[in-house]
Each structure stands twice: as structure tokens, then as C-alpha cells.
């Protein structure tokens, strides 16, 4: 096995490990999350810088990766990329036909350049086609929930079969549940699309090895461009006249007669398999490069123009959709959020109460795959700060819990046609009970009302204290009115954090620090 292959498997294991770790497992802080991969992603870096036009230290690893790519070339693809590794593992089982002509030539630049150019015009779409994001979304939205549901169905089925006796094998299942399975079974919108995209990337292997990587992947293409002048070269550059074995050994580039450095992923299979041991990878400055340098002026200008053409119409969103455009806590400005969000899906994976879901069309074309809070399905847990912790670009800010609690997601509004005390003149107040604001953003007043049955009774009528409502959505989540809730959270423009209650300033509990030694 080559070192590259060992490294690939290692990073795949790390990726899966971090993926599983991106979940609440008894601690308020997640130390290592799968966001590391995005934070070291030059495509994410560039599109962030172009779109947000500001710097974040979160992306420092991506700067280092960019420098490393300058020096070494496109090693990420052959040594690290988990999607590439998965393709390498699967591709031997797929019989190849001929490469698709359409994908050759400038196609990959037609993807990369518009993406970068659209970022300049404030539309950050890099995450849509970023290979790590494609893999992560496929896992998060379909495969992982599928694993969880299968395991749980089996576990529940066992209970139906043998009842209490199931407890004898509970330790084994608990081990699995606590360390591997998702806590809750969640169905995500766009699960199907996410899986299809991943599947297409895999199925492209039918035509040639690493088809996605060499002909489409915008991250790979970017790294190819960056690494094209690296002093680290394969020697000799071309095929030897008497052998030509490289044609068979190389997964990406030698089928066109020579080495196209932009496509070389430094897997070193050629060095490893060379019958004459002539090949080496080393710093060498004398190598002359024979292929044309830039993708071509026409592609460059065309790409930039299409980025602009893409960015402007994608902004359209019908105004009524804005009312339920609820973003994760700490996101105060929609436009700024859209510039920074990678659409990687990590916040949705980690969300404690599964309140976050990928937007299909709710946020317009430009908002596809961005996280939306859907209170009827889950609410934002008062003491939880996980989404901010795993966001690779800080689109969702990583806030300490006492700040996050005060961040406004929206404001709750009663619907008097549905809310029981109004609509039916009977008691309820489940929303007030669950409101986590210490001073209660939902309160009630006692009224003597004549019920519709003619009986006079005292009924507690709820109302919202708007200035201290943070829009967490638990009221809407727990509202016992079926289907449509009697209280709903609506988005607001002004998301200035709610004031700290004077009486409790500084004394709010920091969850997990009980102050009691219970042992």
C-alpha cells in the first residue's frame, strides 16, 4: 500500500469519526467537529473572502492549505479528500465505458469561475458543489438518518417481539446508540436530492476513473490552478518511449499522452508501479510546462459574466416567504448570512432538537440548502450553542451560552383563531409553561369569560412580552393544538438581542455547572 493510500484511509476514518462526533453527547462543547474539513477548504476560503469581503480566523487552516497547494500541487485530492477516497474504493467494482466528451476541455472552469465570480456579486454557492459538502449532505440528510431509523426500527421490533426481555441485550445497543447512532430519527427535505447528487458523482465512475475529480469538482479545479506552478514535480514529466505503463497506473491524467499537472493528484501510483523505477516526485525547477496556461480568455470572461448573470436573478424571493425565514440563533442579518453560509449542513446535523432543516425554495434560489428553523418540528434549546460551534465560517456566530440565549430568532405571535383560550375559551397555557425565558416572554392574565357552553369560568389568556421573546419556538413546538399551532414564530428585521433581565444579570445559570457535588 502506498503512503497516499494509507493517508486517504486515515482521513476517511477521521472524517467519519468527526461526523459522528458532531452531535450532543453529554457535553456542552464539541471540541472536534467535522467542520475542520471545511475550515481547511480553499474553495470555501475564496468564496467567503469574495462574498463577505472580510476576514475570519476560522479559515486560517484554509490559508495554510492554499499555501501547501502552491508548494506541492493538488495533493489534497489524492491524500485527504474523503469523497475521492470513497471513489477510489468503489471504482474498481465499476466497469468503465468511454469518457464523456462533453465533460472534457473547459467544463470544469465553467463551473469554478462562475461560482467564484458569483461570490464577488454576493452569491456564495461554493458549498453546492464542494465535494466535502456533497458528501456531508448526502450523509447527514439521508444515509445517517437511514442508519438511525434502521437500527431503531430493529430495536423497537425486538421489543414488540420479546418485550422486557430485550433488556438483556440493552447494553450492546446502548453502546451503539451512545457512540454511533443519531439521537433522533429525522426526515430532512432535500434528502433525496442530496443523495442523488452524491450518487451521480459516484456513478460518473462508469465512464472513467475519478471522473468527477478531474472534470467537474470545483475544489479540485481550484487546487489544480493553484498547484500548477508548484516546484514539486514528477520526473520525468512525460511518458517514457519504451514503456508507457503510466497510462495504466495513473487514475487521472496520463490517458492524454502526457502529464497535465492540474489533474495530477500526487497519488504516486506511477512511482510505486514503475517497472523500471525511473519515476520520482521531487522539487525541480527546470520542468517546462507544455499545456496552455489559463483556461482561456473566453472562458475566463464568460465565467465571470455568467457568475454575474447567476447572482442577480437568484436574489429573487417572494416577500411572503420572509415571514417564516427563521435563521439559527445569532444570525442577525439575512444578506450577511447568505454570503457566509457554506450550506454544508453541519448545523442541521448537530441541532439538538432537530429544529434546523435545509431550505428548499423558502429562502429563494440563493438560499437553497441554507438552514431554516422550523419550530413545529423542533425548537432552539435555550442552553444549547452547538450550531455556532460547528459552523465552519462563523455564518452562525459561536456565542457563549449567556449571549446566545438573548439572540433573537423571531418573535412569537398568537393566532387567536386557533389558540384555545381565545378560540374555545378554555385553559391551556402549555406555551407559558415551556417558555424558557426566566421572566417568561409568554404570560397570562385571568379573565372571567362566558364559555360557549354558557358556563362562566375563569380562563387564563396568554400574551407575548415581545421585548423579551427570543423566538426560540418552543411555544409553537409544544402547542397542543393539532397541525397548525395557536402560536407561531415570525421573522423580524430587528434582531437586536433581548435585554438582560436586571434582576438576574450575571446570575443566570451556566448550564452544567451545578455548583453541587452530587457524588
Amino acid at each position: 500500500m502506498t503512503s497516499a493510500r494509507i493517508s486517504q484511509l486515515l482521513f476517511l476514518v477521521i472524517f467519519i469519526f468527526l461526523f459522528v462526533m458532531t452531535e450532543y453527547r453529554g457535553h456542552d462543547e464539541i471540541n472536534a467537529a467535522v467542520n475542520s474539513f471545511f475550515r481547511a477548504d480553499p474553495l470555501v476560503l475564496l468564496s467567503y473572502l469574495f462574498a463577505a469581503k472580510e476576514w475570519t480566523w476560522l479559515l486560517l487552516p484554509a490559508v495554510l492549505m492554499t499555501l501547501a497547494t502552491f508548494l506541492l500541487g493538488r495533493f489534497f485530492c489524492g491524500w485527504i479528500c474523503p469523497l475521492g477516497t470513497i471513489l477510489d474504493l468503489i471504482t474498481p467494482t465499476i466497469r468503465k465505458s468511454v469518457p464523456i466528451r462533453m465533460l472534457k476541455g473547459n467544463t470544469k472552469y465553467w463551473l469554478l469561475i462562475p461560482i467564484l465570480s458569483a461570490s464577488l456579486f454576493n452569491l456564495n454557492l461554493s458549498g453546492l458543489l464542494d465535494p466535502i459538502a456533497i458528501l456531508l449532505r448526502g450523509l447527514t440528510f439521508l444515509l445517517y438518518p437511514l442508519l438511525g431509523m434502521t437500527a431503531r426500527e430493529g430495536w423497537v421490533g425486538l421489543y414488540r417481539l420479546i418485550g422486557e426481555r430485550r433488556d438483556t441485550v440493552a447494553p450492546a445497543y446502548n453502546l451503539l446508540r451512545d457512540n454511533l447512532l443519531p439521537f433522533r430519527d429525522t426526515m430532512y427535505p432535500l434528502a433525496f436530492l442530496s443523495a442523488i447528487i452524491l450518487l451521480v458523482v459516484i456513478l460518473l465512475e462508469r465512464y472513467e476513473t475519478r471522473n468527477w475529480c478531474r472534470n467537474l469538482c470545483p475544489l479540485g479545479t481550484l487546487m489544480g490552478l493553484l498547484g500548477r506552478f508548484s516546484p514539486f514535480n514528477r520526473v520525468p514529466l512525460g511518458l517514457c518511449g519504451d514503456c508507457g505503463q503510466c497510462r495504466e497506473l495513473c487514475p487521472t491524467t496520463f490517458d492524454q499522452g502526457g502529464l497535465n499537472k492540474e489533474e495530477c493528484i500526487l497519488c504516486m501510483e506511477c512511482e510505486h508501479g514503475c517497472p523500471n523505477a525511473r519515476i520520482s516526485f521531487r522539487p525541480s525547477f527546470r520542468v517546462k510546462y507544455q499545456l496552455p496556461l489559463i483556461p482561456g480568455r473566453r472562458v475566463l470572461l464568460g465565467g465571470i459574466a455568467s457568475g454575474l448573470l447567476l447572482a442577480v436573478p437568484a436574489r429573487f424571493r417572494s416577500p411572503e416567504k420572509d415571514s417564516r425565514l427563521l435563521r439559527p440563533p445569532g444570525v442577525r442579518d439575512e444578506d450577511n448570512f447568505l454570503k457566509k453560509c457554506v450550506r454544508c449542513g453541519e448545523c442541521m446535523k448537530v441541532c439538538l432538537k432537530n429544529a434546523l432543516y435545509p431550505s428548499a425554495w423558502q429562502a429563494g434560489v440563493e438560499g437553497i440548502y441554507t438552514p431554516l428553523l422550523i419550530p413545529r418540528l423542533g425548537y432552539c434549546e435555550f442552553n444549547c450553542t452547538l450550531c455556532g460551534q460547528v459552523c465552519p465560517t462563523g455564518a452562525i456566530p459561536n456565542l457563549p451560552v449567556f449571549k446566545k440565549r438573548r439572540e433573537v430568532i423571531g418573535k412569537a405571535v398568537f393566532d387567536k383563531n386557533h389558540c384555545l383560550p381565545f378560540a374555545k375559551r378554555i385553559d391551556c397555557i402549555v406555551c407559558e409553561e415551556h417558555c424558557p425565558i426566566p421572566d417568561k416572554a409568554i404570560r397570562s392574565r385571568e379573565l372571567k369569560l362566558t364559555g360557549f357552553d354558557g358556563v362562566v369560568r375563569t380562563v387564563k389568556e396568554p400574551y407575548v412580552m415581545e421585548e423579551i421573546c427570543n423566538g426560540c419556538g418552543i411555544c409553537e413546538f409544544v402547542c397542543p393544538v393539532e397541525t397548525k399551532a395557536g402560536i407561531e414564530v415570525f421573522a423580524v428585521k430587528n434582531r437586536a438581542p433581548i435585554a438582560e433581565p436586571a434582576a438576574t444579570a450575571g446570575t443566570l445559570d451556566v448550564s452544567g455547572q451545578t455548583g453541587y457535588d452530587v457524588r
Partner: protein
Amino acid sequence: MDRREFIKSAGAFTLMTPILFKEALAAMDQPLVVVAEGRDYPVITRRAINAVGGMKRFVKRGDVVVVKPNMGWDRSVELAANTHPLVVRTVVEECLSAGARKVKVFDNTCNDARRCYVNSGIENALEGMKNVECKHIETERFKKVALNGQFLKEWELYDEALSANVYINVPIAKHHGLSKLTLGLKNVMGVMGGNRGFIHRNIDVALADINSHLKSHLTLIDATRILTAHGPQGGNIADVKVLNKVIASTDIVAADAFATTLFGMKPADIPVTVSAYKRGLGEMNLDRIKVVRV
């Protein structure tokens, strides 16, 4: 005494007899409420249990026991939203030393179960104890039960609570927005599944329905610290009052009735208590409850 007077008094006496008899009987059979006070919570918990007859009175060797605390909220111990972990652990220890085969501790939480179990301190307090389970609720274990109550005809209840030999109710005394207080009677909501918020529309009758079906063999109210406002989850230390008390009784209504006085209220102010009393689930008149302080 003339004839008329005699007949009058005789008639009155005859009419009064059953009532007087009942009074006399009640005096003999008054429900006992134990109030233990002190800063050492394991000690007062143990004292309270011993004063109601010791755990051996309830738990027989080989029994499966459910200890049901209130741990429904993601709040830390001092905020008085969940039963104190030391109280819970002491009850569990007493069950074990009385010979329980297994002690199960759970609650159908309102906030995320993982966070509630961790931050209530209860999961941690029970960690490593043999024959003790502190598992999250598993929804497949809810069983539809015919209650034939006045408001609830049937509801999903947790089968581990139903099948246990002994059910010990360990609530914390708290303010509640709708029912004014939440004590022992309301703590059984933690074994209910389904759309629990539904019962809020007639909560006092609904809780009497559930408590008629699922009897608490022992009710132990944690009043080491109580939540006096913004219940049931609070969040503000200013709403917490430290009382250093634990209340124990086999009569859930009597325990609740006494605990009501800790908030400066009368049992008759709490519709849940009144409704359960009317249903015959226990005594709420303080003058007919024997209060023993230990």
C-alpha cells in the same frame, strides 16, 4: 326534659352518630405526613423515609421499583426546576438496601432528554450504581391504558411505571403557571406519553384520572429548595427559596396539601389537590392530617 325535647335530642343524636363515628375513626386513621428538615439532604431524606415506616414497608426483596423524580427541564440544581439529585439518590439507595431487584429512574422530559438528564445532576448522581437504571424514555414502551376517568377515557402510560411493584413519586415543590403549584399529583405527568399538553384544558380532573389509575405507594416531596415563581422551569435564582425540607407520606393528597402551605397557600387554593381529594385519592384537610416533624 319533656317528651318533645327528648325526641328532638334523640333524633339529633341519631342523625349525628354516623358523623361523630366517622370523626372518631378519622382521628385514629389520620394520614401521616412527615416533614424532615436539615441541611444534609441525604440525612433528612433518610429520616423522612424512616418516619413513614422505613423503605422495607414499601419495598420487598426482589421488587422492581420505579423512582420518578421531576427532571423535565434543562436547568441546573440550584434553580429548583428538577428534584435534587441527592434526594433522588438517597431514595434509590434506600430501595436497594430494602432489597429491590432493580430501581428505575426516568422522566418524560420537556426539554431535550439528554440535557435534562445531565444538567439535573440526576444521571450523574446515579452513575455506577448497581441495579439502577436511569434511561431515557423509549416511546415504544408507552401503552394505551383504559382509564375510564371523568376527562380521560384512555391515555398512553409508560409500561415500566405500570409494571413496577412499587412506584415512588419524588417531585420537587414548584410554582406552576396553570395549576399554581406542581407537586406529587402533577409529577405523574412524567409517565404520560402522547400530546400531554392536551390535558391542560382540564388539568385537575385529568390528573385525578391518572392518579386513580397509577397509585404512588410513597410520595416524597423535595422541598430542599422550592421555586416560588415563573414555574415550572424558572431560571432565575431570585425565585428560589431554600427550605431544607423533605416531605414524605403514603397519602399523595396529604403530602401535596401540606406542601401547599410552604408557599403560603391553602390546599383548597389548588384545584388539582381539591379534585383528587374529591375523587377519594387522599386527605387534603390539614386538621385531619397528622404532621410529624423529624
